[in-house]
């Protein structure tokens, strides 16, 4: 009997996993379908965009066939699908290199920035959120409220420009745009693409410190927005936990207050917090578009905007797919995390 039950349960779990995978696959297909439609259907005439409006009829027709545009739409989509899945996003008009190669080259710069920004968000946001939940209505609670409100209301590009103006132009405390000072540029050969790691590998400590110095402003700015989100979520998770009866029990039993807060209550917030951090990391990819433009940071965001301004459609759609896939991956990751670690979500 029990064997039958476990078998049944196994079957059910397998079915659930299968359903989940199917949903992921459909969402991913949909993501590619949208980028396909944006690239092929929305512009008035993609052929004209390639050959120019002065091309003869013959050239036009040849280009049309070469681009596969004489085929029915569903066949075009299948061709698109198979090439994207092979990592072929076409060639960038701007750099004349395969888009995939370009993205691989610029991506570490974005990751370096987003990673440091997330660290800032975690190490400032979580304590701020916990303290404002414990001391509700206290000074830090008000601070975190204002921080959150500003985070939702300030345009990041404006804040970045003001920061550059004050800390770089007026006070000269922090370096200006770029990953390192101009005279350090190109000294370190990129191995991993992460400036901090590459400079250590090359033994160039001066460059390491310079790169770190350059990271302070953009990473703090980006991190501010994830800090606002993380602290707000931490606060509401903690408030919910502190209301529970087991907290009362622990206190009655005489457990030290710091242990009640950080051990009992915070321990139960850990999993939802990991998903919050993951989601804020996804949001950083978005914020990086504007930040990188302002700080001349040679990452994915700058690549995307440069391609946009030059109507480099392959590069734009390639970047969109990459960012969308990462975003989707983060969502799936946090979903799985929830289901595995939180029995209530099963």
């Amino acid at each position, binding site marked *: 009997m029990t064997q039958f039950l476990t078998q049944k349960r196994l079957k059910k779990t397998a079915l659930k996993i299968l359903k989940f995978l199917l949903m992921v696959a459909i*969402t991913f297909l*949909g*993501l590619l379908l949208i980028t396909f439609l944006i690239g092929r259907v929305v512009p008035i005439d993609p052929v004209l965009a390639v050959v120019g409006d002065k091309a003869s009829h013959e050239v036009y027709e040849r280009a049309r066939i070469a681009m596969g545009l004489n085929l029915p739409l569903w066949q075009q989509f299948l061709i698109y699908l198979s090439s994207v899945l092979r990592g072929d996003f076409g060639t960038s008009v701007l750099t004349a290199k395969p888009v995939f190669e370009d993205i691989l080259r610029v991506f570490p710069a974005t990751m370096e920035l987003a990673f440091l920004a997330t660290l800032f968000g975690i190490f400032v946001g979580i304590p701020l959120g916990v303290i404002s939940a414990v001391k509700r209505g206290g000074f830090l609670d008000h601070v975190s409220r204002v921080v959150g409100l500003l985070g939702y*209301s300030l345009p990041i*590009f404006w804040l970045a*420009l*003001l920061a550059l103006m004050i800390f770089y132009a007026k006070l000269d405390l922090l370096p200006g745009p770029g990953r390192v000072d101009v005279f350090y540029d190109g000294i370190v050969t990129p191995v991993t693409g992460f400036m901090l790691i590459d400079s250590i590998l090359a033994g160039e400590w001066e460059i390491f410190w310079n790169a770190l110095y350059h990271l302070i402003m953009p990473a703090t700015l980006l991190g501010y927005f994830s800090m606002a989100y993380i602290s707000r979520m931490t606060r509401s998770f903690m408030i919910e936990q502190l209301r529970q009866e087991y907290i009362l029990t622990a206190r009655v039993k005489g457990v030290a207050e710091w242990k009640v807060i950080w051990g009992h209550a915070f321990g139960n917030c850990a999993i939802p917090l990991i998903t919050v951090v993951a989601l804020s990391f996804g949001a950083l990819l978005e914020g990086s578009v504007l930040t990188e433009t302002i700080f001349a940071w040679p990452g994915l965001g700058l690549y995307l905007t440069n391609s*946009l301004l030059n109507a480099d459609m392959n590069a734009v759609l390639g970047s969109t797919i990459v960012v969308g896939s990462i975003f989707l991956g983060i969502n799936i990751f946090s979903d799985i995390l929830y289901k595995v670690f939180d029995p209530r979500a099963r």
Partner: protein
Amino acid sequence: MNKLMADQQTIYNHAKEWLLTDTPASAFQAAAGRAYLGLLEFLKNRLAVLGLLIIIALVFIALFAPYIAPFDPILTNLSQRLQPFSAEHIFGTDEVGRDIFSRVVWGSRLTLYIIGLVAIIAAPVGIIVGTVSGYFGGFVDTVLMRITDIFLAFPKLILALAFVAALGPGIENAIIAIAITSWPPYARIARGETITIRNSDFIRAIKLQGAGAIRIISRHVMPLCLSSLIVRVTLDMAGIIITAAGLGFLGLGAQPPSPEWGAMTSSGRAYILDHWWLITMPGMAIFVVSLAFNLLGDGLREVLDPKSDD
């Protein structure tokens, strides 16, 4: 004179009694009483009132822009370029001598135009998709929610950028792009609300009376989704303003010389070292307006959506 004041007092007391009665005689009276209580609670939230006042001021400024702005927002005057604050130009002038205050004032029209159109396009799409999906359930629900999830799988700004890249830069295309990326959360909210009321007795009663699905959804389900949707749309306004300004800043939204705040910030970038007011003033306008919408949205949430705490 005293008698008149006393009379007014009695009328006021009567009105209050009528509004706050426990036994309203009509649906109208009950609704009025609820609205009154909501208003009282809303007015208690000073910050929300401040937000509302700022938005009213914004609408006022946009309506009367030609009378408020002392200068033409487009006409250049090179002899007056890059002037700092003065009595004549209270926000200074920009790189081609246009009065920044006048441009910020005219820019309020563009901001209202953008958020108004995005709300008009995105909110109905979201509510229709959400209520239909929630009401019918099953296959329809699965398909519609998959589509919603696909749109949610993109970061908003990135998808908007891709759309603008395909459609071409411009304020109308920016509005379309933002609207396309804005509706999925509304659909999620409307669906959630619909599922909770779908099986309630009053819906069954209407069904028994022979009402069709379209009638039930449009007359009985949608109105109940409205309050949480209004809260969400208000809170989203700030995000829409910031996204639109971001597109303008990247040169993909409103095109120069139109006085869009994001585009103004962008063109002031080159003068950041010595002429700080060029970027500061339009950015400040974006910040103040989106802050106002956040404050108002928080206040509305407390009144209309008491389920969510803080």
